[in-house]
């Protein structure tokens, strides 16, 4: 299945784009998606420990099992206020 991934804030600059699509096998986890993504975008891999992950509008961690229709967002620590 294909999963759209959006990069927010300076992650878009590091990725060189604000959105991409990653193809993963059915029932892949976010960790598996990230492994594929980081091959293409090594600059993001370096920030993995501080990366926040959302599916839709909810936070998720690496063990989340992806399903068709999921939209993943990756972003750095938030700075509202």
């Amino acid at each position, binding site marked *: 299945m294909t999963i759209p991934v959006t990069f927010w804030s300076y992650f878009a600059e590091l990725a060189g784009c604000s959105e991409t699509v990653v193809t993963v096998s059915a029932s892949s986890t976010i960790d598996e998606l990230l492994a594929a993504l980081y091959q293409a975008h090594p600059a993001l891999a370096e920030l993995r420990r501080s990366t926040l992950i959302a599916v839709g509008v909810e936070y998720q961690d690496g063990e989340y099992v992806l399903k068709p229709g999921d939209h993943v*967002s990756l*972003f750095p620590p*938030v700075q*509202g*206020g």
Partner: protein
Amino acid sequence: MKRFLSITRDPIDEAGLVANRTLSSGMGAAVYFSGVVRGQEGAEAIAALDYSCFVPMAEHQFHRLFDRLAERGSVESVRLVHRIGRVAVGESSLWIEVVSAHRAEAFGACQWVIDEMKQVVPIWKSPVTAAEASTSLNPNPTS
């Protein structure tokens, strides 16, 4: 619990918001916070901050915070406005009002919302120098 949320590119009309306050006769405390862009970001002098926001998720996460606040039962209303886009030094980027029966609850809840927001609401800021501010419009008008 009444709630009002606005994520907006417009300047925050604090006086207008205050003028529109409503509270029931049991309420004794309204606490307001206005967060204003400072002229210094770390060691660097700045002219403005550009705020970007993942709006649907920010709205959802704000409402999750409001849900948690409502569970406490002591707050009658919360109103929150977060400005996005370019916010000049001296202008407000965040305005919050909490109305409660007693002041300790209102102060506590207002600070709690700010603290939690800074953990979970997807908003980011990037500094704009005076040179950048004078030579460019907001480079990311839709972000």
